[in-house]
C-alpha cells in the first residue's frame, strides 16, 4: 500500500492526528504480523440471495419435528429447551462452520479468546433459567443476603476491571476522574441520580422500568416514551454538557449497540445503565467472564445439543404449507442440497434474513422487516510476545482509549491469570461513522492487512512497542453484528410484529428485544422453543 492510500485508510478509521502520526515516521514500518480474516459468512451469505428455483428428489427429503435455523445463542437456547422438554427429533442448521454466532471464540496456543460477546452481568435470582444455566457451568457458590447467586472467584472479572488511556497516560476506571472540574463532578452525580431514579422506578404492576430480559420490564408509556428521542437529546434536555460524561455515555452506546449517542434511543441508553443496577446507589452487577468470553457458554450449550447440529449449512428456502413447513438448505463445502419437512421452524437468525429465506416473505416483504437495521463491527485478536507495557495504571481486563473511535481491547490472558509472556488482546471497532449500509461496505472493502494496520496504529498510541511484539493478528468482520436500537425501533411496533409466529415459524433472536444482549438471545430462544413444545403437544 502506498503512503497516500495508507494515510487515507488510517484517517478514515482513526482520529486524524493518530493517522498523521502513524504515517509520519521516517523509518520503514516492520512487516505486519501474519494473520487472516476469520469466518466466511459474507461470501456465503451473499450467495443466498442469488439462489435459483430449487427442486429436490424424494430421497433428499427428511422428516424432523422442528428445524432450528441459526446456531447462535438463541438457536442453542432453543435446542436446549427442546431437548429438556423431551423433543429430540429436531435439527439445527448453522451457516458458519463454527457454532455460536457473535458469541463464538477462537483458540490460540496459550489461551482461548472471544470473537464477539465477552461477558454477562451476573443474573439476579429472578432470572431463573439463566441462573440454572450458569449453575451447570459451576459459576456460582451460594447466595448472598438478598438471595441472589454469588459468582465464584474465577468467573468474576479479575481486578482491575477497567482503565482508560487519555493524553499519554492510563487511568483507573472508565470515567475520566483526572482533571474533572467541579461542574463535571456535579453533572456526574446528577446523572447517577437520574439513573437511580429509574432503578427504583416501578410501574402499576410492580415491574422495573429496565429489567433483564427486557420483556420482564415495564411497557408503561412513561418508559416507552423514552424511545422517541435520542440519548443525546435526553442529555441535552437535562443540561448534561460535560464532555467526559457525554464521552462515557457515547462509549457505552458504541459498546453495547454500535451506535453513537446521537443515534441511540434514550430508552436503550438508559437501559444500559439502569438494568445492571439492583438498588439505587448500588454497584452494577458483577461481570461473569471467561478468557474466551461467552464462547465458554457456547461450548457448554453445544455439548448438550451437538448431535442435532449441522454446521456449514445455508438455509435457502423456508416454505410453510398445509402439511407443515419445508426447509431446503445447501452445504456450502460441496453444494449438497437437503430438505426437511417439519412441523415447526424456529427461526433463530437475524430478522433481515427472513426476506431471503421465508418464501412468502420473499414474495411480499412485510413492512416490519426493513425496520431491522444492524451495525457493522470489526474484531481483531492480537497475539503478543509480552503483555502490553504501561507505566501508569496496570493492565486491566478492559482497556479503553478515550481519543479513539475503537473501543480499545480486552485481555484474555489477564482473566486467565497469565501475567507474563505471550498475551492475547481482543480489539473491538464498531463502524458507526455513517449509515449502516455504507459502513458495512467499508468493513468488507477493508482487507486483513489494512485492518491490521488500523488496529496496530490505533493501539500504538498507548503501546509504542506493539508492532515489534505482535506475533499474529486475525480479523473478524461482522457485517450484521448488532441490532440498532435507534429511536422508535424498540417500542415502535416492528419488534412486536416480527415476534409473532408466522404459519408455524416461530422467531427467536436478540434483535426481537431490540438490544443485542446474551440474556435477550437466550430468553428469545427459550421462549420460542417453549411455545413450540406447547403447540406440538396440543
Amino acid at each position, binding site marked *: 500500500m502506498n503512503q497516500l492510500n495508507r494515510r487515507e485508510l488510517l484517517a478514515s478509521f482513526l482520529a486524524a492526528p493518530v493517522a498523521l502520526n502513524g504515517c509520519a515516521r521516517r523509518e520503514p514500518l516492520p512487516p505486519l504480523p501474519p494473520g487472516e480474516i476469520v469466518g466466511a459468512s459474507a461470501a456465503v451469505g451473499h450467495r443466498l440471495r442469488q439462489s435459483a428455483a430449487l427442486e429436490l428428489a424424494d430421497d433428499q427429503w427428511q422428516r424432523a419435528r422442528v428445524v432450528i435455523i441459526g446456531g447462535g445463542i438463541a438457536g442453542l437456547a432453543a435446542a436446549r429447551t427442546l431437548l429438556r422438554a423431551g423433543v429430540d427429533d429436531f435439527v439445527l442448521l448453522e451457516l458458519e462452520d463454527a457454532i455460536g454466532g457473535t458469541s463464538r471464540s477462537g483458540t490460540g496456543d496459550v489461551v482461548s479468546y472471544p470473537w464477539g460477546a465477552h461477558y454477562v452481568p451476573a443474573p439476579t435470582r429472578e432470572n431463573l433459567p439463566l441462573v440454572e444455566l450458569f449453575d451447570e457451568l459451576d459459576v456460582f457458590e451460594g447466595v448472598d443476603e438478598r438471595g441472589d447467586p454469588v459468582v465464584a*472467584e474465577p468467573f468474576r472479572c*479479575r481486578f*482491575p476491571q477497567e482503565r482508560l488511556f487519555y493524553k499519554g497516560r492510563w487511568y483507573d476506571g472508565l470515567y475520566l476522574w483526572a482533571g474533572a472540574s467541579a461542574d463535571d463532578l456535579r453533572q456526574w452525580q446528577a446523572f447517577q441520580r437520574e439513573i437511580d431514579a429509574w432503578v427504583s422506578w416501578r410501574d402499576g404492576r410492580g415491574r422495573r422500568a429496565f429489567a433483564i430480559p427486557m420483556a420482564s420490564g415495564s411497557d408503561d408509556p412513561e418508559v416507552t416514551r423514552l424511545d422517541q428521542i435520542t440519548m443525546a437529546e435526553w442529555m441535552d434536555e437535562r443540561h448534561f454538557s460535560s464532555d467526559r460524561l457525554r464521552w462515557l455515555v457515547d462509549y457505552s452506546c458504541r459498546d453495547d449497540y454500535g451506535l453513537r449517542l446521537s443515534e441511540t434511543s434514550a430508552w436503550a441508553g438508559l437501559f444500559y445503565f439502569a438494568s445492571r443496577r439492583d438498588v439505587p446507589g448500588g454497584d452494577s452487577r458483577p461481570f461473569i467472564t471467561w478468557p474466551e468470553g461467552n464462547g465458554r457458554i457456547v461450548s457448554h450449550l453445544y455439548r448438550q445439543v451437538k448431535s442435532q447440529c449441522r454446521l456449514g449449512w445455508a438455509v435457502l428456502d423456508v416454505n410453510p404449507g398445509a402439511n407443515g413447513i419445508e426447509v431446503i438448505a445447501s452445504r456450502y463445502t460441496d453444494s449438497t442440497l437437503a430438505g426437511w419437512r417439519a412441523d415447526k421452524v424456529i427461526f433463530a437468525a437475524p430478522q433481515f434474513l427472513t426476506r431471503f429465506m421465508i418464501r412468502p416473505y420473499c414474495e411480499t416483504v412485510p413492512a416490519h422487516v426493513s425496520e431491522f437495521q444492524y451495525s457493522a463491527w470489526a474484531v481483531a485478536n492480537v497475539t503478543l510476545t509480552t503483555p502490553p507495557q504501561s507505566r501508569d495504571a496496570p493492565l486491566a481486563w478492559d482497556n479503553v482509549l478515550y481519543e479513539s473511535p475503537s473501543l480499545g481491547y480486552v485481555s484474555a490472558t489477564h482473566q486467565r*491469570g497469565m501475567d*507474563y509472556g505471550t498475551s492475547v488482546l481482543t480489539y473491538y471497532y464498531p463502524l458507526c461513522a455513517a449509515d449502516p449500509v455504507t459502513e458495512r461496505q467499508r468493513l468488507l472493502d477493508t482487507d486483513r492487512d489494512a485492518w491490521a494496520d488500523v488496529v496496530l496504529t490505533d493501539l500504538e498510541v498507548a503501546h509504542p512497542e506493539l508492532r515489534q511484539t505482535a506475533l499474529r493478528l486475525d480479523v473478524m468482520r461482522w457485517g450484521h453484528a448488532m441490532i440498532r436500537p435507534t429511536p422508535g425501533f424498540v417500542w415502535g411496533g416492528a419488534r412486536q410484529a416480527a415476534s409473532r409466529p408466522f404459519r408455524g415459524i416461530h422467531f427467536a433472536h436478540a434483535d426481537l428485544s431490540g438490544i443485542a444482549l446474551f440474556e435477550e438471545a437466550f430468553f428469545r430462544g427459550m421462549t420460542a422453543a417453549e411455545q413450540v413444545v406447547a403447540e406440538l403437544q396440543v
Partner: protein
Amino acid sequence: MNRTVTLYLNVFVIATCGLVYELVAGTLASYLLGDSVTQFSTCIGVYLSALGVGAWLSKYVQKSPARTFIEVELAVAVLGGFSAPLLFLCFAKLAVFSVALYGTVFGIGVLVGLELPLLMRILKDAMEFKDLISRVLTFDYIGALIGSLLFPILFVPNLGLVRTSLVFGILNALVGFWGTWILESTISGNVQLLRARGVLALVLLTIGLIKADSFTTLAEDQLFSEPVVYAKTSSYQRIVVTQGPSGFSLTLNGALQFSSLDEYRYHESLVHPAMMSVVEPRRVLILGGGDGLAAREVLRYDSVTAITLVDLDPAMTQLSAEFPPLARLNHRSLFDPRVHVVNADAMLWIEEVGEPYDVIIIDFPDPNNFALGKLYTRRFYRLLRRQLHDAGAVGIQCTSPLFARTSFWCVINTMEDAGFRLHPYQVPVPSFGVWGFAVAKHGDFEPPSRVPDNLLFLNSSVLAAMFSFPNDMTRVETEVNRLDNQALVHYYDDDWRSLR
C-alpha cells in the same frame, strides 16, 4: 605549570588509579569467592609481584621511554577502566571469573610497574637522583593513600563499582592524553597518532560509562547503601545483589528478599513450624523461594524424599544454583537430587492436581503488584488446599504484622475464608523488622512445641512465645482478598505509604 610538576601529577594519578583498580578487583573477588582476607592478600600479592615484573620489563624499553610511557598509560586506562564491567560479565561463572580476575590484576600490575621506571628515566636529566627518587615515590604513595580513601568513602557509594572503575579509567586516559603535550619534545615518532589513540581510549571508556546502565543503573548504585555486585533484568523482574562488609542482600524489583546476615531467622521461622506440624513429612512443595534457602531448611529432615520448588523466574533459580555466595548460603540445595525445580507461574501451576504434598511452604515476595497479589487470593488458597494432604501443613510468609498490619491480617483472614485453620506467629528479623508467618492445616490443630536441634534461631522457648501478638499487632478486620478486588494490594500500598 612547569613540566616536572605536571609529571608528578601524572605519578599521583597513576598511583591513585592503580590502587583503585586493585581495590575493585579485591572487592569483587571477596564478594564472589568469600573469605576477604585471602582474596585481598592474593590480589595484593599478584598486583605487587606484577609491579615487579613491570619494573623488570622496563629495561627492555630501549628507545623513546616517553612514547612508551604514554602508550602504557593509555593501556592501563583501558584495561583498568573496563576491569569492573569485565569481571561483572564473568560473575556467574566461577572458573572464568578467576582467570579474568587474576589476569586483569596481573596485567594492570605489569603496566603500572612499567610506568615509574620509565618516568624516572624521562626525568633523570632534569634533577638529581636523590630528589627524583624522593619526589616520585612521595607522589606515588600519596596517590595510593588518596585512592584508598576515596574508593570506599566517595566513589563506590555514589557510583557503584562499575562506574568507579570506568571513571578512574577516564581520569587515567585524560592524564595520558595531556602527557602527549607535556612530553611532546621527548616523544619520538608520530605524536598525532599517539593522540588519536588517546582519543580512542577516551571514547571507548565514555561509551562504557554510558552503557554502564546495562550492568546496574545509577539510581540503583545510589539507592542501595552497599555496592551492587550483581544485577540482571530477567523477563519477570529486576534481580540485584548488594554486598556489605559482612554479608550480602538480594532484592527483587527493589524489595529486599533477604540479607545473608539474618536470613536464617526468616527461613527457620518459615519452614520449621510447618514441618514440625506433620509426622514424618515426605513430599514437600515450595512455592516461590527461588533463592533455595527454604529448601535448605527442608533438607534438614531425613524423612523428606521429594521437594518440588515452583518459582516463576529461571534467572532467579539459576542464580541460586550458580552464583557462588548464594550457592554457599543455600548449601547448594538446588543441586540436591531430591529437589525438582519448576519455573512456572504458581497460579497456573497449582491448577493441575497431582499427588498431594505433606508440607507446602509459601515464600512469595510481598504483594506489591497485582501479579503477586493473585498469589494471595482466596482462589489461590482454595486451589492450594487440593494440593495438601489431609494431615498436611502449610507454612507461609505474610509480610510484617507491625508495618503492614492490615495486610498481614488480610492474608490470615483470606486463608481462613478459604477453609484453612491457622496459627499466625511473628518473629524479629533485624533486616526486615518484625515479620509475620502462619502455619495452616485443613482442620483444627495445636501449633508445634518443638523444633529440630541445632537451629541458629528457633528453639522451644522462642516457639512458645511467637504465637502471641503484642497489642499493636493484634488482629484487625479486613476484606477477603479476591481476584476481583485485589484488596490486599490496596492494603499493602496503604500500609507502607503510611510509614513513609
